[in-house]
């Protein structure tokens, strides 16, 4: 007897919703596809009308032009150093602080934590001038350190890591205490490895933010060999840059985004599992 089979799948999934989302996805992608199309076209041809995107010939010339600029690789390296440095810095500081806020007792712990949370609401504009002045005193402008430091103060990472550490069962560190483990070793050898998915999440967000940061590099990195990619590309546009040609601009947009896209694709799996706290249970 063949079962007619009622499938319980429909409990949670809904085809129609999926297709609406797919449609929205097309809309999401349209602008990017548009830019990619533009970036592959000759600028002069585009001047006559952007409908040209839909027809041959296509060219890689815009990309070649970007690569011809000798500074691009230096800017790229700066961006890498800053983004990677900032990512590691934020992870380290946030993990240390998150561990302490979630697990250790010390005087004024609650008060300090609340003050740190208030930091979440501080807009960058409220601090940027004083920061700039301070970095003068210590001669930190036009250095990698100077570009890395400011975002280390972001309270978001501390908040996130505190939540993640709280999710780890307390017995784990109690067991470690009975194993004669020092407080730092408990953090470093026992708990930190358990927060790896969280580190991946926070790491990706920090990296993206650092890579795309604009105002601080603009006013701190004023020498062209210290430019980050974002600033460098902006500076290489002529005044009223737009007249350079849409294709070239599109190529720049794609080019500057490429590394983050790669980072994203590489870590994508971790974002999902990390955000859902999969491994820490």
């Amino acid at each position: 007897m063949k079962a007619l089979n009622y499938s319980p799948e429909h409990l949670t999934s809904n085809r129609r919703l999926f297709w609406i989302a797919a449609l929205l996805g097309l809309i999401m992608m349209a602008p990017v596809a548009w830019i990619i199309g533009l970036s592959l076209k000759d600028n002069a041809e585009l001047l006559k009308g952007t409908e040209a995107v839909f027809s041959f010939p296509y060219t890689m010339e815009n990309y070649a032009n970007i690569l011809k600029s000798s500074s691009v690789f230096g800017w790229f390296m700066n961006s890498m150093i800053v983004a990677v440095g900032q990512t590691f810095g934020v992870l380290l500081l946030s993990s240390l602080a998150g561990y302490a806020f979630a697990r250790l007792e010390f005087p004024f712990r609650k008060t300090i934590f609340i003050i740190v949370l208030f930091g979440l609401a501080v807009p960058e504009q409220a601090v940027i001038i004083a920061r700039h002045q301070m970095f003068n005193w210590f001669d930190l402008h036009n250095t990698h350190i100077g570009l890395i430091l400011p975002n280390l103060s972001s309270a978001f990472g501390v908040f996130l890591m505190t939540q993640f550490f709280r999710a780890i069962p307390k017995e784990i560190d109690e067991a470690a205490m009975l194993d004669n483990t020092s407080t730092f070793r408990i953090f470093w050898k026992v708990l930190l490895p358990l927060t790896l998915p969280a580190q991946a999440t926070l790491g990706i967000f920090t990296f993206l933010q650092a890579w795309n940061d604009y105002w601080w590099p603009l006013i701190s990195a004023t020498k062209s060999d210290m430019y980050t990619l974002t600033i460098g590309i902006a500076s290489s546009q002529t005044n009223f840059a737009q007249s350079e040609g849409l294709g070239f601009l599109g190529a720049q947009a794609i080019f500057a985004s490429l590394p983050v896209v790669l980072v994203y694709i590489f870590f994508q799996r971790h974002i999902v599992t990390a955000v859902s706290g999969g491994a820490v249970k």
Partner: protein
Amino acid sequence: NTTIELQRFFGACEAEYGKVTDVSSAVGECGIITALVNKFEADNPDIDVNVTTVEWPGYDQLNAQLASRSEPDVVSMHYSAMSDYQSRGLLVPLDKLLKDQNIKPSDFTNAAISSVTKEGKVYALPFDNWTMLFHVNNNMMKKADLMKSNGKPILPSSADELFAQGKQFKDATGKPYLVQVTANETAVYARIFYTLLMQQDSKFFADPSRIDLSGKEAKAALTLMKDIMDKGLSTTNMDYPAAVAGFSNGAGGIAVNGTWLIGTYDAQSKQANNPLSDGYSVFPIPQFFKQKDVTYADGHGWVVPRGNRDDEKMAAIGKLFKFLYDNDYEWARTGHLPTVKTVIDSDKFKSLPHRSDIAKVAKTGQALPAQVLRQFAIQDILGEELGSAISGNKSMDDALKTAQYRINDLLENI
């Protein structure tokens, strides 16, 4: 070896011009200035010029550098921005430096030298002057029967003529008469407005620390600008790049835009099969008011920010300025107007395409009084308020009153 830190906008084009020393082969702002610097370095092996390119207009970065005392040695700066820095003692007077190089103030056009002279001292090497112009699509004008027999377009010489010709144009081509930048950037409004006020000989900045827009001149200027819009004489909703491209594509008859586009449009007119093919010309903004033949002008100069520099370096900077002065013609090929009298009067310059048509701007060009501070911010406020009035969001009186109030509030609180 002496190193000069030079900071400029105009973009980067290392790829194309990084090695070029033959200035005459370069085109465009970026190409020419890059080639010029290369040539200077080649001519002066003992001087290195270290170029930092900044995003236009780069004043955020300059401010940051000044605040952190890491100023470059030479910086490109608009005339309209100079008073801000000069008034705070952030610029070095250049009289002695220019004198040592045998450059006299009288060598420059009046429009140029007056813009860089503050409190009797020269604070910049004037490099160019630019104004808003009428870029004309002759092909479309011909369709509208607005061409003279000598191959030049018929342009209005009064407001009435403007409306009449505009209507005639629109009826014939179905396209608006003017192509204007009206979205995102409002600076154009302010520049046209200044021009129209100046043409009425209005002394709206009689006192450089306050603006006066209460007179009938302001109302008249604004009325004219609004009528152009209301009567459908202009494109709408175009931002800067759209307007530039729009004119190329025959979106209208006359583009109201700056000197720097001459090169681009001229090049297009020399290609086949586009709306501008063989049909481009350019003229100063017509005199819509009888009082004075004048047009608002600004320009780029080279300044030296405050800072400790030894004589050797100052001398090197002097040499660089002399070189730039000597090569003002090359820069003028961009479309900007030269600042050196001998260049502007030279046949070489006049024989550049269209230059004879606009040469008079060097004489009729006029900047705001040099003592007026925060001209960039003023231009933004003014542009915004004028825009409100023109688009009908505010009454004209209201807009002018608000603009005057906001600008004066700004100036009072410096």
